């Protein structure tokens, strides 16, 4: 650690910020460069599809650290410039503006970029993605004029945007590829409850697969489906997943597959660490590499990567073994989940009922608790967390039950 004088954190989102903070908190007092492709200082992304899109919150509210708190970190802050390359032999990060940042160690936290549909690979009026503050403000502007919104993609982002937009008065169609959107994320029962809420609030759920965005006169006019039909709309939101933003690492010699491949300690190579949406590390339960595009993971993995970075090769490094957590806010309800609920899991209620929109349930696969999901029952849900962490048996062993 004494030899460590220059550290670069690439990516100035939540993971990058938390990595930088954790390094300082642990006593690292050398040069600390934080590189961010966006102009804005680190901000929080989850509200983009909710409070920011609805207009309830203004952009300032998303700022993760006040200017004075950021200043206290004594960063070499490079905002508005993307990283363009990593030379591991020379130990430099090359920036898009031609500057080079020397570094003894680097934390990769460049996150993901949203996938786009054919026909809208390049920016197209009326066709949106939702990842950055600028994306959200552009979509908000289009929704301000009312009209029809077509949300493409059955994930959480699409669901939240659909819920927000319909509350704003838009005529919303949610295009999903399976009749049970979100079941793979929240389990079949909770997903069905949410789909029902969407319909009750006037969202039209359409099952189909988008093959491309239709355009006329320089503006999106709809989406073509795999069955040959067209859906007309005024505004399209492409919420069709994302890809790790790791193009800048091509040629670095790092292992890149779906993300930056790390070991259990979040190390991707000698002096190279990764955290957040772009980091793929071996899941302790399966041994397979996976990424977690979750806000809580950005923080927790960044803390781990930073601590392990400072621990050095002979230090007490800690394997990263998180209990995944996600939440989503739709129609005034907050849905929370630990672990990995799946579509085929048994749904074992421990509190409340689906009908009253208040419950906590264990998600059981092959006799093991692999996840927990709930609404308005935070304490009962938290009570399942230890079971989820341990992939404990179901029904729980009476002797170890608290």
């Amino acid at each position, binding site marked *: 650690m004494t030899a460590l004088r220059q550290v670069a954190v690439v990516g100035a989102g*939540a993971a990058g910020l938390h990595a930088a903070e*954790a390094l300082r*908190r642990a006593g690292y007092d050398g040069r600390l460069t934080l590189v961010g492709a966006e102009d804005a200082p680190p901000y*929080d992304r*989850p509200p983009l599809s909710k409070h920011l899109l609805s207009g309830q919150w203004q952009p300032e*509210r998303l700022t*993760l*650290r006040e200017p004075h708190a950021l200043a206290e970190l004594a960063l070499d802050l490079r905002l508005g410039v993307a990283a363009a390359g990593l030379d591991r032999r020379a130990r430099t990060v090359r920036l898009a503006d031609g500057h080079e940042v020397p570094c003894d160690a680097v934390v990769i936290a460049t996150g993901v970029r949203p996938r786009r549909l054919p026909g809208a690979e390049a920016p197209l009026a009326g066709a949106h993605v939702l990842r950055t503050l600028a994306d959200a403000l552009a979509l908000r502007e289009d929704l301000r004029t009312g009209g029809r919104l077509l949300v493409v993609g059955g994930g959480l982002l699409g669901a939240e945007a659909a819920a927000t937009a319909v509350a704003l008065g838009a005529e919303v169609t949610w295009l999903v590829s399976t009749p049970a959107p979100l079941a793979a994320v929240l389990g079949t029962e909770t997903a069905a409850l949410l789909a029902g809420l969407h319909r009750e609030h006037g969202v039209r759920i359409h099952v189909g697969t988008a093959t491309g965005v239709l355009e006329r006169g320089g503006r999106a006019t709809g989406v073509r489906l795999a069955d040959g039909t067209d859906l007309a709309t005024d505004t399209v939101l492409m919420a069709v997943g994302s890809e790790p933003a790791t193009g800048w690492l091509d040629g670095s010699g790092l292992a890149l597959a779906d993300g930056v491949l790390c070991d259990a300690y979040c190390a991707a190579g000698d002096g190279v660490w990764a955290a957040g949406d772009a980091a793929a590390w071996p899941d302790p339960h399966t041994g397979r590499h996976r990424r977690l595009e979750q*806000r*809580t993971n*950005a*923080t*927790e993995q960044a*803390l781990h990567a930073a601590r392990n970075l400072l621990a050095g090769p002979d230090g007490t490094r800690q394997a990263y073994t998180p209990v995944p*957590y996600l*939440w989503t806010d739709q129609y005034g309800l*907050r849905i*929370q989940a630990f672990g990995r609920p799946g579509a085929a899991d048994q749904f074992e209620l421990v509190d409340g009922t689906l009908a009253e929109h*208040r419950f906590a349930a264990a998600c059981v696969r092959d006799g093991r608790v692999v996840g927990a999901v709930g609404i*308005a*029952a*935070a*304490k009962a*849900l*938290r009570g399942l*967390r230890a079971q989820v962490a341990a992939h404990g048996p179901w029904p729980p062993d009476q002797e170890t039950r608290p």
Partner: protein
Amino acid sequence: MLVTIDQDKCCGAGSCVLAAPDVFDQRDEDGIVVLLDARPPADLHQAVKDAADVCPAAAIRLETA
């Protein structure tokens, strides 16, 4: 130590309650943090710092007061 929380930012993960159950709790309906002790005793300071560190929403602020 003075602890303040921002309930609007809280995402309800409950990480703070796990780290410092004597200082933080959660509302049942949405998991939002509830502050039990704004001036926790010294023996809890480390746990409270841990809670602030792991808060995914950076909703916990600590001042040395």
